[in-house]
């Protein structure tokens, strides 16, 4: 199992050639085994035939002499036969008589006439005509001499089989070398072929990885295979996907921009109203100054009135500046941000004659550690949505709780309840489908902020109708540590 697991870990461009090579080795082993088996059987039957005719010849030559017990004639026949059967390379032949004793051997100095045949001779034969002793490279054959149905003696022969085994070894070596070369060629070819085949897949894989990291680039025409086919259509499909994704992203950006402009418009008109309100008072005060400026009491009152009116205008302008100046959005969230939201919301609330329940628990000693800009924007978006959902003269609520490790922001309204798509966009695992409906980009920006902070969103029905959207944002570990060190 571990072997297969390891095998799977090897890249395909190496795995396939290795498998091809292994297959070649297996095939060559089987073929070699068959060839050698066939060869050895052919050789053995050939040798059997040769040995059979050798024994036939010997039998015919020595039988009369054995009958007479004529030592010389038997020896003479054996001596001549050794030269007549060169193909078999006889080493030795021994003829025994009816009593089992040696009549004559081709080498009488080793096996003298009239001696007992050595034990080893009787036990060296197998079932076949020829028995091979591979260690000694020798073949043995045996034949009873039968005359008129009676055994009158026997012939024992041994011959050199080294050329047979040498031939086998030679063929084995040839097979191994040939198959080794073939296996090498096939595995190299397989390697190159597979490399070539999976090259487009690799291109696609690289692009997919890049896309997963946020940079989806279409596959350039250079990397397209010269001939069309499946790969080309696959690449085309991928490129179409990339283009569609880009269009969608552009569209979403455009929508976000529009949404931003729309809310900006709403805020701007609210702000104009906010500025316009004190302006009437200011002009009145200026008129009063023009007319009764010489009266110290009236003048002081008017100047004070003008000052407060201008302060109110400045607050509004500063809040707007803080919201729409990007360089200011990177600093940590602070109570001022929430105050800014309150200021920004004021005109809209007033327009709709709504009340804001403001419950911010922001202990002064606790440092803010969450990026201020996105959170403020998110809170503003939620409050604007809540205000839009709540009927005129209703109430919206903001509740902020700050503990050591998390920040909880709840926005409540008195509306008819949030649409499903909006809830899904805020709290579903995969907000994709909800986003694709193209609605509620303000909420989408909230969701993106929460995801970026690693927090979560809950949407539930409020105690007196309407909805409560709760953002839970964890305060990052390192910033808490920094804080404790600082403390």
């Amino acid at each position, binding site marked *: 199992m571990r072997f297969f697991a390891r095998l799977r870990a090897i890249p395909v461009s190496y795995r396939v050639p290795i498998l091809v090579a292994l297959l070649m080795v297996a095939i060559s082993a089987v073929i070699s085994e068959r060839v050698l088996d066939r060869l050895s059987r052919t050789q053995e039957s050939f040798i059997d035939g040769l040995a059979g005719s050798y024994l036939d010849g010997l039998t015919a030559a020595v039988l009369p002499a054995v009958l007479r017990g*004529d*030592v*010389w004639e038997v*020896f*003479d026949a054996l*001596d*001549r036969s050794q030269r007549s059967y060169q193909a078999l390379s006889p080493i030795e032949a021994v003829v025994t008589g009816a009593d089992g004793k040696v009549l*004559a051997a081709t*080498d*009488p*100095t080793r096996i*003298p*006439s*009239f001696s007992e045949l050595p034990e080893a001779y009787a036990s060296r034969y197998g079932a076949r005509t020829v028995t091979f002793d591979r260690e000694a490279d020798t073949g043995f054959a045996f034949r009873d001499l039968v005359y008129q149905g009676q055994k009158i003696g026997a012939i024992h022969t041994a011959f050199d089989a080294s050329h047979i085994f040498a031939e086998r070894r030679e063929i084995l070596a040839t097979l191994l070398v040939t198959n080794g070369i073939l296996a090498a060629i096939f595995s190299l070819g397989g390697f190159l072929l597979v490399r070539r085949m999976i090259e487009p897949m690799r291109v696609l894989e690289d692009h997919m990885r890049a896309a997963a990291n946020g940079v989806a680039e279409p596959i350039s025409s250079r990397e397209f295979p010269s001939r069309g086919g499946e790969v080309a259509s696959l690449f085309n499909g991928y490129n179409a996907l990339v283009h569609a994704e880009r269009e969608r992203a552009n569209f979403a950006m455009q929508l976000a921009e529009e949404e931003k402009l729309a809310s900006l418009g709403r805020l701007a008109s609210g702000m104009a109203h906010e500025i316009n309100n004190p302006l009437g008072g200011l002009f009145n005060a200026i008129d009063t100054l023009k007319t009764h400026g010489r009266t110290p009491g009236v003048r002081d009152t008017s100047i004070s009135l003008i000052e407060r009116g201008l302060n109110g205008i400045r607050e509004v302008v500063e809040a707007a500046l803080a919201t729409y100046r990007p360089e200011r959005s990177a600093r940590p969230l602070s109570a001022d941000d929430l105050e800014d939201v309150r200021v920004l919301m004021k005109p809209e609330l007033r327009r709709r004659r709504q009340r804001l329940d403001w419950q911010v628990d922001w202990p002064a000693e606790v440092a803010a550690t969450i990026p201020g800009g996105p959170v403020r924007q998110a809170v503003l978006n939620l409050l604007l949505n809540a205000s839009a959902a709540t009927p005129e003269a209703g109430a919206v609520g903001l509740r902020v709780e700050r503990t050591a490790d998390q920040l909880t922001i709840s926005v409540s309204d008195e509306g008819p309840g949030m649409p499903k798509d909006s809830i899904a966009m805020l709290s579903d695992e995969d907000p994709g489908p909800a986003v694709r409906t193209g609605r509620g980009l303000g909420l989408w920006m909230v969701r993106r902020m929460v995801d970026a902070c690693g927090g979560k969103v809950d949407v539930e029905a409020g105690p007196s109708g309407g909805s409560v959207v709760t953002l839970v944002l964890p305060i990052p570990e390192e910033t808490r540590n920094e804080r404790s060190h600082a403390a």
Partner: protein
Amino acid sequence: MTLRYPATSQVLDRRSALAFCGGAALSFALAPGRASAQEGFKFGLTPVFLSNDLELLALLRAFLTEAIGEPVELVSRRTYQEITALLVAGQLHAAWICGYPYVQFKSELDLVATPSWHGKPLYQSYLIAAADRPTERWEELKGDIHAFSDPDSNSGFLVTRALLAENGLKPEGFFARTFYTYGHRNVIRAVASGLAQSGSVDGYVWDVMREMEPDLVNQTRIVRRSEWLGFPPVASPRALAGDQRITRLKDALTAMDRHEDGRKVLALLRLDGFVATEPALFDTIAAKVDTVRRFG
């Protein structure tokens, strides 16, 4: 009628003829019936005859045919006994036989001529053993497997038999085993190969073969040489005493060294020539027969 060698013998090369026949049974023994044919001169050859060289046989036949004036048929058999029997029975006109059968059938045979070797019609019998065997005395051959040439051979059997008899021994008691090879060359091969540890062999054959096949003969050495004995003679049946062909044969043989073809034959046989000898030349052999007879 013409005499031809059977085709089978002609395909035998010189080497295999030597190896196979080994001074014994000539495979080109003529077709049955020839021997008993009335026409033609039948000349018997025993294995004492040195070589089975086809060239020699052709030369000898041509020489004898010319000398006798009619076709000559050369008759060979495996054993001495067969040739001797044919000769005594009158089925051969003459034969080159051994001194031992001659003395056995002295009353029925006439001497025609005897070969002369090194200037004398004499030869020896050798007891031989393997060349690497440090044997100096024949008594040390006791217990051997011994190769004899032929039971009717003087040098290849009788001499050793008589030697043992003189010492109160018999071959079957002195030697562990004995066997016959029916050819002097075969005795040398048997001893050289180790099939036999010692052998009784014709000294003339051993000496001449040492020139022709030194590799074989030098694997053996002489343990004992016998005294000089009458060389195997050419004899004819006494019944043919008046036959002109026998006279012509005798004249031709004794004059062989003066005839061109005859000298070729003699050169192949390594002989000086043929001489007319008295039967007394073989008395020493007869004495050995007596010794053996007395002992057994």
